[in-house]
Structure formats: structure tokens, C-alpha cells
């Protein structure tokens, strides 16, 4: 019951116009309240009144449409409006038409390029541009501009970092000086695979500079076939995207970094690519009951509730900058930790029968020095008397023995310090008897006997 009420409630948001359009047609926005529905015979000029109803006027063409249009469907054309008028582009680029004096006339001196299918046709500063597209087994990210004098297309040089392997079936938004491209496919040269690109790119038209804005947070995994069928309708500074299989559509607004999701009920007519938006109203064609004619239908998005609002892209640059700060802190911490660790680290020296060494090098020692080290090794403290015994000589006076011992230790410490940068043997007052001195190995130093393999 609740569902039925909801469906009835939602259906009240639609307005059906009276103009049944026969055959193929193309809806093109004129200004903020009116639009054209072009057919091959004439154009409907329609206006939305205050209540959302469509008031229309049919104007047959004064001249038949150009022959090149006979072979193709009108809704395969791309259309754009500048202050000079409404322009149409042949699929794949090249041929340009203009709606002029109640007729569609061809204004180019070119040919069907077939090089930029699904490219973005837009006007900027009264010039016509075509961006990206697919053709001749390759996707492109280049920009071409229509030359009104020569009637041909010129390639425009762009800078910065464009999508590397081109833009096919992209979603585009032109907002002021910027064109945003996202949710597109790329094909590497020689590859048959259409790879989906998950990033948002911006082309600044005043500087012609490309900038990668970030990775899409709400990234659709749908394939290229579904993207071809999806509706992509410009809406102010945003873009409405609706996949046929979805019961919702999304409005992407890169300027505000926002994606709004609108949920639709089953009874709402499906809208495809041949649709426009005027303000908050989406205008599109809907099949009549016998499917022979189309009715032009509107939905007022302002009356629909936004189901979900979320960020459009993750600002990768900002994220990477923050990550670099983290890396910097990590590296500083690692360096400081290592430095602190090694400054308090017990240095190991290896003593052999004629030298002492560590990773820094080997210092040759005299026999007396080796004897002193042998006594000090593996002992916390050694009494002075023990060391004096080492130099005991019945032929020498006690004073001479003491001087000899002191000289050997002093010379050794000097030699050791010069080589390894630290003192090895420390002399302290004994804790047990303050009149006595004791010798010890420096605290953060460990002496080990050489262990040969």
C-alpha cells in the first residue's frame, strides 16, 4: 500500500506535453526556459511555463535537411549552443550543421572524420570544440577546434597530464572555463580491452592545461556497453548520469565535489541520452502506448528527494601530500631511533693475541697492552694491585713499576682513542676503599676473545 502511494506521489512530479513527436528527434536546450525538439521535417520550439507544463510551437524547415543527415538518426548527432546559435556535429566528428533561419544547414568544408565517436562537443567563447572520443581502433584525449573560416578542424595543443590512453564513452561537464571528464574508458594501443578509468580530469580551457583532480569515490564498475546506453544529461554545473539497469540516477557536481543520488520508482518512464535539463527539470521523450509516437515528458528533480549525498572524488594530491608528511615523520623516527640505539649501544671489540679490532678496523697492540686487556676482560672492576702485579719486577722500584703501569695504560688509551674515538680503560676510586683506585672497561664496551672460524 505504501509503495502504491509512493508511486502515485512520484507520478505527480511528471508533466506530459501535448506534442506527439513522430519519427526520430533530437532535444536541444535553447535557454533557461525553452528548448527545441528537432525532427527531420521541422522543429518544435517548446517553452516551460511556471507550472512545469510545456507550451510548444511547430516550425517546419524552409529547406530540407542536408543529404548527409539522411543516412543517420538525428539523435546520433551531438548538439551544442553558443551565442551564435545551435550547432550539430556528425557522429565521429568532421561535419558541422547549424540551425539557421528555420533550416538545418551544413557549415563545414570537411568530411566525416569518424575519429572521435563519443567525444565531447561543446562551445567555448563562441568557438566549437570536440574533446576525446574513439575512432580507428584507438581512444583519444586530444582536443580539436572548428575553424569557422576554413570550415575544417584544427588540433589544439594541451598541456599537463591528460588521460594517457584517451577518453571513450566519457561523462563530461563544462563549467565556466573548465571541462571535467570522468567515468570513461581507455584502450591502449594494440590492446582490445577497454579499461575503465577511475579518475576525474579537468581541462582548463583558458590555459589548455590538464589536471588530474583525484580518484572517484563512487566508481561505477559497469562495462562500456552499459555506458553507451546510459543517459548523460548536463544539468547546470553538473551532470545527471543514469544507467538503464539502475532504479536511481546520480547528479555529479565536480565543482562542489559532490554526488547526489536520486532514487526512482519503477513506474517512471526510462530516459535515455536524448534528454536535456532546464533548471531542475529534466526533459525527455517517452514512448506513446502504441510506440508510434513520443511524448515529451518532464521530471522536476526539485520535487524528488535526494537519497544520498557523498563526495565525488578523493583529492589524491592532498592525500599524497599528507602521506608524504607521514613518511617523513616515520623516516625521522627511524633515523632518531637508530641513532639513539647506537649511541647507547654496547660496542664489541675482539681481542686476539696481538690486536684489538671491530668493524672500524684493527689496532695492533704490544705484549704489555694485551696483558692488561687480558686482566680487565670480563671483569667489572680490577684492583690496582692486580695490574701492578703484572709489571712486577724485583729489579725495579715500586715507584718505577707504578709509573710503567700508568704509562702503558695512558698510552694505550691515547692510541685507542685516536683509532676508535673512545677511551677504553677507565680509572676510578674504589667504592670500598677511597684510598685505592680500580680499573674497568668503559661501560658501553664489551671485549670478546677472537673467535676464528
Amino acid at each position, binding site marked *: 500500500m505504501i509503495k502504491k502511494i509512493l508511486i502515485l506521489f512520484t507520478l505527480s512530479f511528471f508533466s506530459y506535453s501535448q506534442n506527439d513527436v513522430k519519427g526520430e528527434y533530437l532535444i536541444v536546450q535553447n535557454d533557461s526556459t525553452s528548448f527545441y525538439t528537432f525532427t527531420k521535417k521541422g522543429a518544435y520550439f517548446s517553452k516551460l511555463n511556471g507550472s512545469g507544463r510545456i507550451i510548444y510551437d511547430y516550425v517546419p524547415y524552409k529547406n530540407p535537411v542536408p543529404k548527409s543527415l539522411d543516412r543517420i538518426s538525428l539523435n546520433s548527432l551531438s548538439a551544442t549552443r553558443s551565442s551564435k546559435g545551435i550547432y550539430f556535429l556528425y557522429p565521429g566528428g568532421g561535419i558541422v550543421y547549424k540551425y539557421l533561419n528555420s533550416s538545418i544547414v551544413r557549415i563545414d568544408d570537411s568530411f566525416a572524420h569518424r575519429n572521435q565517436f563519443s567525444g565531447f562537443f561543446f562551445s567555448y567563447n563562441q568557438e566549437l570544440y570536440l574533446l576525446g572520443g574513439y575512432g580507428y581502433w584507438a581512444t583519444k584525449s586530444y582536443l580539436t577546434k572548428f575553424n569557422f573560416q576554413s570550415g575544417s578542424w584544427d588540433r589544439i595543443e594541451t598541456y599537463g597530464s591528460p588521460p594517457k*590512453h584517451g577518453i571513450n564513452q566519457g561523462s563530461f561537464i563544462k563549467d565556466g572555463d573548465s571541462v571535467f571528464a570522468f567515468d570513461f574508458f581507455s584502450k591502449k594501443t594494440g590492446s582490445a580491452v577497454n579499461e575503465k578509468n577511475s579518475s576525474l580530469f579537468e581541462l582548463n580551457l583558458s590555459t589548455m592545461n590538464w*589536471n588530474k583532480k583525484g580518484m572517484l569515490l563512487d566508481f561505477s564498475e559497469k562495462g562500456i556497453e552499459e555506458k553507451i546506453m546510459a543517459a548523460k544529461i548536463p544539468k547546470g554545473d553538473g551532470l545527471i548520469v543514469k544507467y538503464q539497469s539502475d532504479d536511481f540516477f546520480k547528479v555529479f557536481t565536480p565543482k562542489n565535489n559532490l554526488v547526489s543520488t536520486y532514487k526512482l520508482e519503477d513506474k517512471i518512464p526510462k530516459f535515455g541520452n536524448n534528454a536535456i535539463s532546464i533548471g531542475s527539470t529534466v526533459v525527455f521523450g517517452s514512448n506513446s502506448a502504441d510506440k508510434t509516437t513520443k511524448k515529451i515528458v518532464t521530471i522536476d528533480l526539485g520535487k524528488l528527494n535526494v537519497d544520498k549525498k557523498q563526495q565525488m572524488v578523493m583529492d589524491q594530491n592532498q*592525500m*599524497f601530500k599528507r602521506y608524504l608528511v607521514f613518511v617523513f615523520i616515520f*623516516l625521522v623516527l627511524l633515523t632518531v631511533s637508530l*641513532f639513539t640505539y647506537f649511541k647507547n649501544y654496547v*660496542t664489541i671489540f675482539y681481542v686476539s693475541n696481538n690486536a684489538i679490532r671491530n*668493524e*672500524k678496523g684493527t689496532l695492533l697492540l704490544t705484549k704489555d697492552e694485551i696483558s692488561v686487556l687480558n686482566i680487565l676482560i670480563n671483569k667489572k672492576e680490577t684492583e690496582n694491585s692486580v695490574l701492578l702485579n703484572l709489571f712486577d719486577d724485583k729489579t725495579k722500584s715500586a715507584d718505577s713499576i707504578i709509573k710503567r703501569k700508568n704509562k702503558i695504560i695512558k698510552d694505550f688509551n691515547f692510541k685507542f682513542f685516536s683509532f676508535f674515538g673512545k677511551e677504553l680503560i677507565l680509572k676510578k676510586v674504589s667504592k670500598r676503599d677511597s684510598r685505592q683506585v680500580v680499573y674497568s672497561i668503559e661501560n658501553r664496551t664489551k671485549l670478546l676473545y677472537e673467535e676464528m*672460524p
Partner: protein
Amino acid sequence: MVEITFINTALFLLLSVVTSFFLNRYIYNVFSNNKILDPITSRSSHKSVATRSGGLSVFLSICICYAIAYSTANLVVDPYAFLGVMFMAITGIADDFFNVRYREKFFLQIFAGIIILQAGYTIDSFHGIFGIYEIPSGLAKTITLFVFLVIVNALNLIDGLDGLAALILIKFFLFVAGIVIINSQEMGLFFPISVGAVLGFMAHNFNSSKKVFLGDTGSLFLGSIVAFFTFYILDSSNDLVIDSFISRPLFCILVLIYPLTDTLRVILLRSFKRQSPFVADRIHLHHRLVDKGYRHWEASLMIFILSTLILIANLFAFQFIGLFFCVVLTMGLLVLYYYLFFK
């Protein structure tokens, strides 16, 4: 897929450090009990018992943590890359145990490189260096294979000081992690696992009495991982955030600046002396530091800090001075470092 968060990154880092630390200790004991010791030669800087078990321990630690991350957090690594790296690790183990001859090892490296190429990441563009962008597929694969050999052997060659290779690897993994994770989170947890495994090893590598070396297992295994991520960055089909900061080839050179410059210098000097470029000697820049009186940790830390400073300086300067002047800046800093610290 499980999203990469600070919590699961920290958890896997911790898990990896602990696994690597205890595995290193355990495998050291196994090696020393079985007298599988690193021989002490005239070129050796160690004179105590040391084993070449570090690489095996790091390899096993990464495998264990990878298995856990794969099952719990859906860590995905390209199977060809995985296979190629495993092949390199096995080659390293064989080399550590049986001393594989250089020519055979070279052939096995080429084979592993070809497997890793199947992952689909190649240096298919010069990204504007010398004005060259995309290059033909055949040439791209040849260059990729050459770079693979250079990176793997460069890491092998600089593994001559305690902590040096480990610190260079940590720097590489840390900087590259941000680029890869922002582009694709599925390989994200591989980085805390790798950094943790290397940190766990480093604690034993710096130990004076029970020293553990990376050995060929470590340098070939970790070298091939480094090479794979280098190809990932240089493959033009990946839209990477690094493009907004610095030229990709310049970044890759800078993040591996020490192994690359030292290897180039050593090969040039040996060629100048008409020696084989693969002959073992003590003419590396890090040997110079040790000969000047720096201890191993001091020399390693100095090289680590100096090379990181070059990278950071370029990351800041690139937007303002562009590629050419960044190359000039790098060359200038290298010359300055040489005269200040290495000469």
C-alpha cells in the same frame, strides 16, 4: 575488498616485524647449529659468526603475512609477479647454499624477469624524457628486462654494509606505497608487510655477535619486488598521483639513487681498469665511508639520509623548476655529497 585503514596497516606492520624478528632468530640458530656460516674472507667486514639467513627469513615472513592478508584482508598481487618473485627467491636460496655461477644466475634472472613481464607492467613510455613518450612494445619489453637486471643486481651489489640494503628498501617501500595505494588499494597491505619484514631483519643485521646477512636470497627476492613496483610506476596505463608531483622516471631513479649511482660508478671504474664489471672488490662508495672511519651503522644511516634528502628536495622543487633543472639539482647534490662525505 577490505579497505586499507591505519589500523590494519599498523597491525600488519606489527605482525610482520614480529614474524620476521623471530624467524630471523630461529633460522640463524638453525644455520649456525648446522655450521652454514658466511665464510670470512679478506673482503669481509665481519670476523664473528654470521649467517646468510636474513633473506630466507624475510622471504618466509612475507609469505606468512601475505597468506594471512590474502585470507583476511583480500590482499591481491598479480600472480605472474608473485611467480617471478618466488622464482628469484628460490634462485637466491640456491645461490646462498651452493654458490650458483654468475652466468647461470644471470640467465635465471632473465627468466624471472620474463615471468614478471607477464604481469603486464612494462616501461612502455619514457614519460617525456628526451622528448620521448610511448615506445614500441618490443622495445618496451627489452628495456624493462634490462632495468630488471640492473635493479636486482644493483641491490645485490650494495648489500655490503650492515643495514644499508635494509634502509634503502624501507625508503623505497615507504615512498612507493603511497603512490600504489592511492591508485589501487588491492596491493596496499603488501607494503607494511614488506617494511615490517625488513625492520625485523634489520635488528639482527645490526647485531654484532649474532650477525645475519640478507644474502642472495634477500637481495634477489627483494630486488625483484622493487623492480616490479618500478615497472608498475613506469607503466603509462596507470594513472598515478605522482604525475602531479614529479616526473615518473626521475622519481624511480631518485628512490633508488644510491644503488643505481654506486653500481654505475663501480662498473665504470672496473671497466676503466679493464676488469670484469662483476669482479668483487672494495671500491663501492660505502666501503669508502667505512675506510674513512665511519662505523657500519653510521655509513648506512648517512647514505640513507643523504639519498632521502635528494628525493625530498626534488619532490619540492619539481613543480617550480621542472625536469631539466631537477636533473641539474640532483647532479649538483651528488657532486657535493661526493666531495663532502665520500672523497
